[in-house]
Structures are given as C-alpha cells and as structure tokens.
C-alpha cells in the first residue's frame, strides 16, 4: 500500500518545551523579533478590530473616521436593524447555517469514524483502493466538484432542496483520513481482541470501545467538518436559489452585492454577528484544532 502522505506526527501533546538555561540573546535581536511579530499581529488583527469597532458605531457611521477606535455606541440599535431587515431573514440564515453544518458534520463524523476505524482495524478486500481514493479526494478540493454536482442535481430536480447541500456535505475524505490516523493511534488491538473474546459483535465493539477511545478525535473531526461546510460558499450559492433556504454566507454576499437595496452597514454588522460564534468556538476549542492539523498535516 503506497501512502502518499507520510506517517503522522505522534499525538499532539503540548509542544515539548526546550528546557535549558535561557541563552543570552542580544537586545537588538530581541527588538527585531518582537517588532516583526508585532507587525504580523497588526496585520492579522486589524481587519477584525476594524469590524468590531465599526459594528459598534451608531448606524450609518460605519465607514467614517479611521475605524481604529470606538466612536459612539450603537451596537444594540444596529443588531435590531439587522434583525428587522427583510423580515428578520438574517436569523433565518444563521439558523440554516447551523442546521446545515450541525447535521452535515454530525452524520459525516459518524460515517468518517466508521470508515476510518474499518480502514485502520480490519483487513478486507478493497481496503488499499479505498484508502487511495480517500487520499486522492483529500487532495482534490471539494469546490471542483460543485459545478458537476449542480449539473447532476438539476438533472434530477434537486435544486432548491436542502438535501442538495446536505448530501455532498456529509462526505469528508479528510475526516476519514483523520479517523484512520486516530483509530490507529488510540485504539489498541488488544482491547478489541478482549472484546471479541467476550463475545461482543464487531459493531458493538466499535460502539462501546472504538468510539469511546476515539472521542476526542471525533470532536476534532466534527469541528473540521462543521467549518468546512460553513466555508463552502459555492455549493449553497448555486443549488439554493430560494433565499429562505440559504446559509448566512450566501445571504450576506447577496446583500453586499445588492448595494443600494440593503444598506452596507448591515453587511458590516451581519459579518460581525455571523463570525462571532465561530470565533468563540475556535478560541474555546483550540486544542482540538491543533490536534487535527498536526495529525492531518504530517511532517
């Protein structure tokens, strides 16, 4: 079996700190390093800072001033306006996003776990082929499949149907890859053997032993897939024409493109509101992110 991607780095434990006497670093070096890092922090944070500041300004002031510091407070009024625009469709979009991502990622995680576990723990005909296919699919971006999917769905009249977003979203080759890596690392064969000796069926062993041991990994897979679905703009934009079915990304882009019809400040506020839950989840669940990246990205 040829694996394109080399063996994964061992489980992502907190970075092994190199302990030792702190070498005398020259002050000039320290200043340079800190200055460069400070510059990078400014670059990465500035757009988000601007978004936060602007969304709290009184309605209509969003694009005036430097946007560097707070100036008056209108956040609540802004959110109220956002909520009343087009009969409150913004929250409908948020709900749609959460549903597509939540349901898609949940089912997808189950499928990925089953497949990855089988790939790691069993020998069966077609195992090598399946894993090669999964790896190939990891490399080919999902977006490239979107137009063909659209053509196929319009052939079978599945346009404007939530299933047209959900069905493709459930499949995550990267999730399968991660599940295989994690199953190999965290589920010892001896435990499975013991389960078999006790007379447990294979599915029961998977459900009671495999899933429990892979649980932190499954959280990681769920997170990655949730964000992957949230990030996939092209698919819902193409297959969902009815704006009551669209996720928030598609809705906001349409608002932005409508220019006059929807006031641009609402796009600013909507952007902030729509990324806030993602940011909170991201900050709260950092360690799961890094687990997935180091396992998936390999050395």
């Amino acid at each position, binding site marked *: 079996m040829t694996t*394109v991607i080399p063996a994964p780095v061992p489980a992502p434990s907190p970075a092994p700190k190199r302990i030792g006497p702190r070498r005398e670093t020259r002050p000039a070096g320290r200043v340079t390093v800190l200055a460069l890092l400070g510059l990078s922090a400014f670059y990465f944070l500035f757009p988000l800072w601007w978004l936060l500041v602007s969304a709290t300004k009184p309605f209509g002031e969003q694009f005036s001033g430097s946007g560097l510091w707070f100036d008056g407070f209108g956040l609540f009024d802004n959110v109220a306006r956002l909520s009343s625009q087009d009969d409150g469709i913004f929250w409908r979009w948020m709900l749609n996003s959460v549903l597509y991502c939540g349901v898609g990622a949940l089912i997808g995680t189950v499928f990925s776990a089953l497949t990855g576990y089988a790939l790691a723990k069993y020998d069966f005909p077609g195992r090598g082929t399946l894993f090669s296919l999964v790896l190939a699919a990891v490399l080919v971006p999902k977006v490239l499949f979107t137009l063909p999917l659209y053509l196929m769905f319009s052939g079978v009249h599945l346009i404007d149907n939530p299933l047209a977003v959900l069905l493709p979203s459930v499949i995550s080759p990267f999730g399968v890859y991660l599940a295989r890596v994690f199953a190999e690392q965290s589920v010892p064969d001896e435990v499975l053997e013991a389960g078999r000796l006790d007379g447990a069926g294979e599915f029961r062993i998977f459900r009671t032993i495999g899933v429990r041991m892979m649980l932190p990994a499954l959280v990681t897979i769920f997170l990655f897939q949730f964000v992957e679905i949230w990030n996939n703009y092209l698919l819902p934009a193409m297959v969902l024409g009815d704006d009551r079915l669209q996720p928030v990304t598609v809705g906001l882009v349409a608002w932005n493109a409508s220019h006059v019809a929807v006031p641009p400040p609402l796009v600013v506020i909507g952007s902030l509101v729509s990324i806030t839950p993602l940011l909170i989840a991201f900050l709260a669940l950092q360690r799961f992110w890094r687990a997935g990246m180091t396992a998936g990205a390999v050395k």
Partner: protein
Amino acid sequence: MTQASPSVRATGRRPAAAAPSRPARGALSGRPRPLSPLLFCAPFVALFVAMYIAPILYAAYNSLFTVRRSGLGLTAPTEVFAPLDNYVRAVHDGSFTASLGRVALFGVVQVPLMLAVALVLALLIDSKSARGRGFFRLTSFIPYAIPGVSAALVWSFMYSSTSSPLNRLLEPFSVTIPFFDDDIVLWSVANIVTWSWAGYNMIIIYAALQSIPAEVLEAARMDGASALRIAWSIKIPAVRGALVLTTVFSIIGSAQLFNEPTVLQPVSGGSISSAFTPLMSAQSAVAAGNYPYAAAQSVLLAVAVGLVSLIFFKLTRRGDQA
C-alpha cells in the same frame, strides 16, 4: 503444526478463533466476520460514489454535447452530440484561457510569498528571542477561523475606494493604494488569501520545528552558530517536508480560487470580470444556461489540477529518495 488433531481438521477454520493465545498479528488476527468492515464503510462509500464520482462522470458525459440554437432563436435550443466541440471552444475561449493563466500566475507568486511569511513567522515564534509565543501564534491563526467569504467581505471594506481604513492610515504619508486597479486587483485578492491561510501554514511548519531534537540545536549553539545560521542550516532543512506539503495544498487551493474574487466583484468597478478565475468562468456558463460548456470547463480544470499535483508529487518523491 501440520499434525493437527482430527477434530480440528473436521471443523476446518475454527481453531484460530479458539486459540487466541497465538501472538496477535496486529489488527488483523481477530478474524472478525469479513462482512463487518464492508458494512462499516458502506455508507461513506455509497455517498462518495454518488457525490464525487457520479457528478464527475455526469459532467464528462454532458460535456460531449453542444447546445445549438436556431438562427432566429424562435425554437428552443437543442443539444447535439459533438464530443469535442466544447473542448475546442474552451481552448479558444480567450477569457477562459486568460482565467487559467491568471490563476497560474496567482499560484506562482502568492504561494511562495505566503509560505515565506508562514516560515518566517514560525521561525520568529520559535526563536529564543521571542516573547509572548502563545499570543502571536494565536493572532496569526485566528483568520483561519473566519470563513473565506466573511474574510473577503471584511477586506472588501478595507479596500473600499471611498472609505478604505487602510488608505486613511496611509494618508499622513500621502499614499493611496488603488486596490481595485486592473493591475493591482489580483494582488488584492492574493492578500486576502494570504491573510486567511498564512497562520494555518505557520502552525504546520511550527509543529515541524518543534520536533527538531533540542540536542542538535544546543550543539550548534555550542559551536558558535548564530541564530540566523541555525535557522538557515538546521531549522529550514528540517521542515522541508512540511514546506512541500503546504506548497502542494496551497497550489491546489489556488486552482479553486472563487470566493474572494466573487465577493469583491460587485465593488471592484469592473476590474474583476465574471470570468476572472476558471471556476467563475464555468459558473457564468451555467448562469448563461450552457451546461455542457460549463461541464467541459470543469473537466479541463479538474484535469489540470490533477496533473499539477501529480507532477509535484513525482518531483518531491524523487527528491526524497535522493
């Protein structure tokens, strides 16, 4: 071994299961019913075939037809089987080939630049002179949590021709950057992609840096190597694998460029055409109702991406063996 007792012979395959004390041969010794792993994979495989393989075949089949309109447009257009028409048309379609060239240029410039930023950041955070490592790691990684479309929306405000906060910051230096000029707009898009992904790549490279044995670095320091020298001669060669991997993923990512230019398009004042990238070009063929032509463009793009990644893997494989 061959002297198996008659009873064992009679029951054929039983004994292995009855003798679990035999040293386990990894995952595969438990001789589970051969059906279970197939059942485990079935849901994924079924949907994978339906949602990945079927659409590609469908698109490839579709691309073999050509939409023919009658001269006066009085009758409905008909689809005629003409296997090569769409491909010939795509190859001669100036805006489609231009979009391929644009994305190739984007990949050649943006990918090395972004990875250079990621590598330098990783080295800086990893360096002995750094303070607040956790903070800087997090700040560069945060954009990864922002969906591509949202990032593009925020940057479209940054670039606004009337109220760009960036240009306001530059006012004291009497500099104004025309982000949407024809010559600049591609790099404005590149900046959004870099902003979104540099931190992600940095984390991967940083993880590779962390796995360099401390003794190696210590020995180099004992020998009097400077921090820059260590970075150049030890650290960068050690993260070569991570760099190759991030390069491949980034190149493939460039091919699917769509979200950022699409979001910027309505505010770009025309510098972003509806066929700015190959995917946008294919999508406008869909919007125009010419599905077979869109299918042909998708197939061409998929083949191009496949070839580029194949070549890249072949090249890096050879490098590894050397």
